[in-house]
């Protein structure tokens, strides 16, 4: 994994740089939405940030399963990376959400389905990191269990919060957006997904180097 990862990161980083440099241009050229005004542009960051978080949670779940059942250390490193990356993108979503909300709903926070679900997912991910931090020796295997449960929880959270409350603009508006709005959205979307992968690759590499350092320490002590 290491050599592949080493080559992968610059490619991903370069690609996401390209998307993030070009995205503002495309977003500015997109038509000005009359009711929401400038705030509507947040959408181009908000939605892709969430999608990137879901990608990271999915990676977390799969990697956790691999680590738990196959005991592959590489899978554990990927799981930590994914959890931290998911927290970052989740924070982006949670910051951009209220900015939109104050304009659209007149309040910073609404107990709306998506927002509630977002907060809970963020909570689960932070709990995962807390376990790793404070669980002591061997908590990596326990964290893998939590990782699987976190992924399995997504559909239940989605359905339950959805029925519980709905004020949020439906996700189903996305495919029906006029093309002028759609192009910048998918452009940002691609940018965020590539960025997510780049962060994952960088974070995994950090973990790999940490593991290598630990191995060296152990080897030095050996003699």
């Amino acid at each position: 994994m290491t050599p592949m990862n080493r080559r992968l990161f610059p490619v991903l980083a370069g690609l996401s740089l390209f998307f993030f440099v070009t995205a503002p241009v495309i977003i500015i050229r997109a038509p000005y939405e009359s009711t929401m005004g400038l705030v509507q542009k947040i959408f181009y960051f908000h939605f892709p940030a969430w999608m990137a978080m879901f990608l990271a949670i999915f990676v977390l779940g799969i990697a956790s399963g691999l680590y738990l059942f196959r005991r592959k250390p590489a899978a554990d490193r990927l799981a930590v990376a994914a959890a931290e990356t998911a927290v970052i993108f989740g924070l982006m979503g949670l910051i951009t959400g209220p900015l939109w909300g104050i304009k659209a709903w007149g309040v910073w926070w609404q107990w709306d389905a998506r927002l509630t679900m977002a907060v809970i997912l963020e909570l689960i991910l932070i709990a995962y990191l807390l376990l790793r931090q404070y669980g002591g020796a061997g908590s990596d295997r326990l964290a893998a269990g939590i990782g699987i449960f976190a992924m399995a929880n997504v559909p239940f959270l989605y359905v339950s919060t959805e029925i519980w409350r709905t004020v949020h603009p439906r996700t189903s508006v996305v495919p029906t957006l006029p093309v002028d709005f759609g192009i910048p959205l998918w452009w940002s979307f691609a940018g965020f997904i590539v960025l997510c992968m780049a962060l994952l690759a960088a974070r995994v590499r950090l973990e790999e180097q940490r593991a290598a350092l630990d191995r060296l320490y152990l080897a030095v002590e050996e003699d």
Partner: protein
Amino acid sequence: MNEFLRVAWLVVRKDLRVESRSRELLFTTVFFAISCVLVFSFGFVRGGRAVEGAAAGILWIAVAFSGTLALGRAFERERHHDALRGLLLAPAARPAIYVGKLAGLLLLLAVVEAIVAVMVAFLFQAPLFRFPVRLFALLALGTIGFASVGTLFSAMLVRTRSRAVLLPVLLYPITIPVLIMGVSGTAVLIAPEPDLAMARLWIGLLFFFDAVFLTLALWTFEPVMTE
């Protein structure tokens, strides 16, 4: 399968016997649940009457809080003399041990819920028992969902530091769907105009949650418990 049930039953019987000697878990959990309900009443009673719709929330939060307490204590007992490792070393199927611990906790929580439900109905004038079968289904399925995740988590936290804090930190976010489903289902049952179709939907969702998470817990128990 017989063998599985035999081992699970052995564990349940052992837990019941231990509990019948000390009664610690039952008394402390029931007392804690009652305190919970009372504490919430100070938050939700205005002008001598409960805020409308508070009853369902208070019932479920009392269940979740006292459930966490019971989970922590039940496994503290297994941890204390390293007994859990004795269980794990037995040549029995490990998921059977999980099921045994889960069943014991469900019995305990059933007693707690019976008391809390009556108390909430009485103190908050909530018509909880208008649809007893549906309420029973909600409570039973909700408790199974909560306890099946909780039993796995507290079993695996037995060997970690700061387990007392980590259990609620991990358990509450993951079981929030249960709480949403349970509270919403109870709320539509006790509303002035009960919505039975919605209640059925919530019960169905709870059932689905239980099926998925019980399966996951049985599946991960063995690898998670190997250090």
